């Protein structure tokens, strides 16, 4: 069964203090690994899709990387507006339509 584990559960950073979030996964035939951002009271907002080991994608202060067993979401010089829950999900052989999510990392960035 496909599985996603995210760590840490919660992370508190000072503004400008860079860090990384981890997403470990087991999946039967990875088709894609997805990162989403979820603000309180909102739906998940798409950030990145990674398809194969070695792939990297960037967006503003965020950079996602992928290996055969895990993905990292690197946050460089975070700002308070980066505070949110970051969700990782995978889709495997069952197809792109079925995402299996981790429980997320709650990030709080203090000014």
């Amino acid at each position, binding site marked *: 069964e496909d599985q996603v584990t995210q760590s840490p559960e919660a992370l508190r950073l000072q503004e400008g203090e860079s860090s990384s979030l981890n997403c470990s996964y087991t999946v039967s035939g990875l088709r*894609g690994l*997805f990162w989403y951002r979820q603000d309180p009271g909102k739906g*998940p907002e798409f950030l990145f899709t990674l398809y194969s080991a070695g792939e990297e994608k960037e967006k503003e202060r965020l950079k996602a990387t992928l290996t055969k067993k895990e993905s990292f979401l690197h946050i460089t010089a975070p700002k308070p507006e980066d505070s949110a829950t970051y969700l990782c999900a995978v889709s495997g052989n069952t197809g792109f*339509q079925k*995402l299996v999510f981790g*429980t997320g990392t709650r990030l709080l960035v203090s000014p």
Partner: protein
Amino acid sequence: DTAVSQTPKYLVTQMGNDKSIKCEQNLGHDTMYWYKQDSKKFLKIMFSYNNKELIINETVPNRFSPKSPDKAHLNLHINSLELGDSAVYFCASSQERGYTIYFGEGSWLTVV
């Protein structure tokens, strides 16, 4: 323009009642989903429809019945509501062969 919209946003109802949540997407996608997020924030797929046809049904109780009148709409009807049904229900959509699933804002269901 909201891409994936669902109504109502908040719903408080008594045990045993029947309720529906409606979802509409204006992205031109042909696949729609219902996901459930529990109190621990764990997000799990319930159903997936492609071109009005059910393609994923993840061992959800029979009390939950999705209905897709057309490609742009996917409604969720819940019979005989139970306390454990309290959760946030997210509608989502994607292209059939697309790699990105877009979520709505969620419907907060509280069963008392």
